[in-house]
């Protein structure tokens, strides 16, 4: 079982690495640098002007530091077929299987806690008036708590054992809030670890374990699918009747291609979420920079990234048998999709421009920014997209 676990972890690592490479592509890194830079610029500026040692700084430090603790559940990599093929394995074998899984599950939360600890360090020391050792003890405690949580999550896979991550998280938040005032709670963490380690897998609930893993994987793939195509992701289409007003009133003016593309955009969460996310991203960046030139430049980049990430829609139905056998004119497929994407980009331009009216000073510069963004949409719709989507 231990060998199987290591084999699965290695496969999972390769798969995750593949998606991480796709997610952190050149465009995304560029956007991330801009966003992170803007955020850090704002943080440094705010830190200089903030008054020292207000009453809520300490609990705020504990709360923000606790946030990365929420990331990362127990990775088990159980598959539906395990119910059939591994059903006969006893508790000891499952323990052996889960041992490397727990170590693997610690990687992500540890990285996030350390990263957040680093970012929060100037605020905690300079503004919240925490001593260096008191502050350093906090991320260390959190990492130990995470390990304890994973052990308890494992024990919760027994029949009739209840484990609630929400209650555990709430207890840890309470302990962290106490820690900023009284004492490092590392001892409590060690106690929790000892308690978790003392309990073993006896009557394993396979259905629960498989379902938990399915939900966990789905969450991870949802995250990846925000940026790239994920073949393992099962997309749940939603009707979203309230968006039907964006569809033409009569289908007679549609071609079969534009008919299906329009509905895919509005009902497939992969595309709709992308559109909403990127639009919110543009508004957020515009608000953070608070400068029409930066807002315009970054929004142009975001609109381009939106168009770029909507390109897979061109191949969405290529493997659907009913689409392939229908007497549809495939020669107009590319043009039909470009027309649909044109209207999507225009809608995005409209949303961003309206948000600018609320967050940027209304003057001639704003008109220039909005016009530039419109020209960008036009260029994408008339040159970039037709070139990328052929036939």
């Amino acid at each position: 079982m231990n060998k199987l676990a290591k084999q699965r972890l290695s496969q999972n690592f390769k798969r995750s690495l593949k998606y991480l490479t796709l997610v952190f592509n050149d465009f995304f890194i560029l956007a991330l640098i801009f966003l992170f830079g803007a955020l850090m610029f704002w943080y440094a500026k705010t830190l200089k002007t903030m008054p020292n040692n207000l009453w809520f700084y300490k609990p705020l430090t504990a709360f923000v530091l606790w946030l990365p603790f929420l990331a990362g559940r127990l990775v088990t990599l159980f598959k539906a077929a395990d119910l059939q093929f591994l059903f006969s394995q006893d508790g000891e074998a499952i323990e052996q299987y889960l041992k490397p899984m727990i170590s693997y599950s610690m990687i992500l939360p540890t990285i996030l806690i350390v990263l957040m600890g680093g970012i929060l360090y100037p605020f905690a020391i300079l503004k919240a008036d925490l001593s260096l050792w008191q502050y350093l003890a906090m991320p260390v405690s959190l990492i130990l708590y995470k390990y304890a949580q994973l052990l308890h999550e494992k024990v919760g896979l027994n029949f009739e054992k209840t484990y609630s991550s929400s209650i555990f998280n709430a207890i840890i938040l309470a302990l962290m809030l106490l820690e900023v005032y009284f004492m490092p709670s590392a001892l409590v963490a060690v106690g929790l670890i000892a308690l978790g380690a003392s309990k073993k897998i006896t009557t394993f609930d396979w259905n629960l374990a498989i379902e938990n893993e399915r939900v966990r994987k789905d969450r991870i793939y949802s995250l990846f699918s925000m940026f790239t195509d994920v073949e393992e992701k099962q997309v749940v289409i939603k009707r979203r009747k309230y968006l039907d007003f964006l569809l033409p009133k009569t289908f007679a003016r549609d071609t079969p291609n534009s008919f299906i593309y329009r509905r895919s955009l509005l009902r497939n969460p992969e595309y709709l979420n992308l559109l909403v996310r990127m639009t919110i991203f543009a508004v957020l960046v515009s608000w953070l920079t608070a400068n029409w030139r930066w807002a315009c430049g970054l929004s142009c980049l975001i609109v381009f990234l939106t168009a770029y990430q909507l390109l897979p829609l061109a191949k969405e139905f290529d493997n659907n048998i009913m689409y392939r056998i229908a007497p549809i004119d495939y020669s107009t497929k590319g043009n039909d999709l470009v027309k649909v994407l044109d209207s999507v980009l225009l809608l995005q331009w409209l949303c961003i421009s309206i948000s600018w009216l609320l967050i940027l000073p209304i003057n001639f510069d704003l008109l220039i920014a909005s016009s530039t963004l419109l020209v960008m949409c036009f260029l994408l719709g008339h040159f970039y997209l037709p070139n990328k989507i052929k036939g």
Partner: protein
Amino acid sequence: MTLKIEHLTGGYTGIPVIKDINLEIKPGQALGLIGLNGAGKSTTIKHILGLLRPQKGSISLNGVSLSTQARKFKKQVAYIPETPVLYPELSLKEHIDMTILSYELDADQAWKRAHELLKLFRLDDKLDWLPIHFSKGMKQKVMIVTAFLADTQLLVIDEPFTGLDPLAVANLIDLIKQVIAQDKMVLMTTHVLADAQQAISTYAVLNNGTIEIVGSLAEIRDFYGLKADDPFDKLYLTLNKVTGHE
């Protein structure tokens, strides 16, 4: 008005599944394609639908060649697959609209016919549902409704009775009979001969990728040396022996 399959050899890259198939379906004729799993039934259908490219041979419908006039050919063909394939993004109503758009049907007439079919299969109150809300049997009914709505010259049906309730099976058989009465053509693969016999009189036995015999059930019994009172399922045992699996 004939479907002609001439010297069709095909399958997947490097794996020929069907060899030198010759078949002809005339107007008003329904042909049942029967054989064991892996005999090549689905591969033959995939070639007729244009999902696979023949390695040799040709397929034409009323003189329209699939390889040179694919869209014109496809306009004359509707398909009911064994496993229902719907567009997850479209509601039932929109599947009807999509069929109307794809086959360029008159919308008013098509919707009139659609309402009749939807009522027949008890789907008329589910027009706004997405495929995710349908059971497998209901999805299959949607496939049947859209295929019959397309009103094509040739109807290709792959294992149609799987997952359907007895009422829906009876309705489907009635519809197939109506289509045959209108001088259209039906090609059906099935293992459920008891149901198929109600609508189909001619069968082609496909074995190891080749057609062994085309004829009535009586002629097929004679060919395989079955007695008149033998259950027809005995044919499958005979085919199994022929292929050397027993």
